[in-house]
């Protein structure tokens, strides 16, 4: 079974598979599992098969667009695609906003020859946990459908894990690429803020949103980032920072890895977390890395800054619709959005001042280490029941006592989430590798070296195993 973009690209060029075959396998996986795990909001089967046939014809003529040519890819449904629709998993989003338009990242995928198979499920507007009160699927985890696949890029995570596509787009504002990567047992990359244009994506946090890939492997994430990264002036935050994947030789000699434990092993962490994390660090050391214990500067403050910033920036976008269409939002979305009204404008500005201080302190730390390693979450995927809050929605405080992602959104550094083992209940555990600003090459090298020595990233949930080609 072809599981990775890298292997699929090699097989296409070796003539041992075709894009149409890859796309048919992806469609078969969706036929088998999508109804149960709710990966897609909108499938594009016929469109994808047409694009796959075009890709095969182009490759046969020697017209090679690169490693994503002919590869099935999913797109999170807060990102506009002309073949749409784009709904943000909400009754509220004006369908005309994204109609007949491609976001810059979608245009880049198309230009690279990617075969987009559909729009994937998400938390409403990337922040509200879906329930059964609205006409959208509730995303579920393919490892155990009674558990949350993570979010908000839920469908992209479950789709990669289930083989419905080989890579997909997600977004990350407080962890929404890395959390589904962690809970679905796949790899996910949050690039440096501004490296990938976020125009054409429904905003959650204007100064926090990152578009990035989920895929099986670090090497696959690198291939997707090469396509996505680079200046687009329609996004005022986008910078001129294209990306070229580094050499993946598996040798981490000379790489200094700072290991963070403080605040990442709460009393209610899964008992398998510490052994799995220690084993992962040992693998990195075996590849030549020097390991040292470090502490994240301003850890609590950056978590607060992320919540304040996201709440305020999101409420500005949603305030009029909240007033007029309260009941059309999911309860969890409403609960998140109202937090923006509970802080002042001065609080927002102060959060931005402390973000600047933390960025500087973190940059100083990265003068002493090349990569920082920490768990992505303290547990495997939680059950839906355990996440429920009184009055509807999710208990955000409980959730973020278990997940260690928002810090990195506040500072804007790149972070790669990788599978590193399983809980006793058979749910994936995940490692985060963070780098200095624009340091994606280092974290991808480290992640690839880890994956050259382990096979966690190749494990397939039993739900998807029956569809293996």
């Amino acid at each position, binding site marked *: 079974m072809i599981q990775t973009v890298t292997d699929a690209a090699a097989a296409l060029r070796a003539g041992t598979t075709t894009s149409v075959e890859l796309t048919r396998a992806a469609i078969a996986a969706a036929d088998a599992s999508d109804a149960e795990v709710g990966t897609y909001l909108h499938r594009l089967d016929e469109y994808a098969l047409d694009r796959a046939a075009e890709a095969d014809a182009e490759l046969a003529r020697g017209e090679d667009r690169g490693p994503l040519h002919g590869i099935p890819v999913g797109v999170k449904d807060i990102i506009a695609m002309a073949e749409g629709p784009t709904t943000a998993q909400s009754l509220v989003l004006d369908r005309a906003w994204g109609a007949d338009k491609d976001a810059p990242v979608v245009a880049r995928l198309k230009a690279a020859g990617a075969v987009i198979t559909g729009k994937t499920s998400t938390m409403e507007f990337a922040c509200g946990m879906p329930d059964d009160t609205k006409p959208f699927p509730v995303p579920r985890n393919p490892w155990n459908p009674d558990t949350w696949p993570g979010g908000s890029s839920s469908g992209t995570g479950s789709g990669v894990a289930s083989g419905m596509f080989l890579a997909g787009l997600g977004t990350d504002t407080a962890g929404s690429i890395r959390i589904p990567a962690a809970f679905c047992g796949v790899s996910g990359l949050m690039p440096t803020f501004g490296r990938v244009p976020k125009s*054409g994506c429904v905003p959650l946090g204007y100064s926090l949103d990152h578009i990035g890939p989920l895929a099986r492997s670090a090497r696959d994430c690198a291939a997707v980032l090469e396509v996505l990264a680079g200046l687009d002036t*329609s996004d005022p935050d986008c910078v001129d920072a294209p990306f070229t994947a580094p050499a993946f030789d598996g040798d981490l000699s000379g790489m200094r890895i700072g290991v963070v434990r403080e605040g990442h092993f709460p009393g209610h962490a899964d008992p398998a977390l510490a052994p799995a994390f220690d084993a992962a660090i040992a693998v990195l050391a075996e590849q030549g890395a020097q390991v040292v214990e470090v502490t994240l500067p301003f850890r609590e403050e950056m978590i607060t800054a992320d919540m304040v910033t996201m709440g305020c920036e999101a409420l500005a976008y949603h305030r009029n619709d909240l007033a007029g269409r309260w009941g059309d939002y999911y309860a969890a979305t409403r609960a998140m959005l109202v937090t923006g*009204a509970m802080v002042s404008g001065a609080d927002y500005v102060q959060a931005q001042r402390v973000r600047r*201080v933390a960025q500087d302190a973190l940059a100083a730390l990265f003068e002493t280490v090349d990569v920082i390693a920490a768990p992505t979450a303290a547990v495997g995927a939680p059950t839906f029941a355990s996440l429920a809050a009184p009055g509807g929605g999710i208990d955000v405080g409980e959730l973020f006592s278990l997940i260690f992602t928002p810090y990195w959104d506040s500072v804007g550094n790149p972070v790669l989430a990788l599978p590193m083992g399983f809980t006793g209940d058979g749910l994936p555990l995940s490692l985060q590798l963070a780098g200095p600003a624009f340091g994606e090459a280092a974290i991808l090298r480290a992640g690839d070296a880890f994956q050259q020595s382990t096979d966690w990233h190749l494990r397939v949930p039993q739900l998807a195993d029956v569809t293996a080609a």
Partner: protein
Amino acid sequence: MDDLTMVRALLDAAGITPSETELAAYAPEYLTRRASVDALYAVPQARYTDPALRFRAGARLEDWAR
């Protein structure tokens, strides 16, 4: 002013009128959230720091659609 009254007033000022059930769920979080936000003002290194915000004169809107 108790938390419930405070939260009701804040949301009302923002034009938001949740149900009493939802309001009762939001209110207990307010104090916890307020304490963590107040802690941001206690970061001494931020006293004279510019916020991570920038306004550029002459900036124009550009259509993102491709």
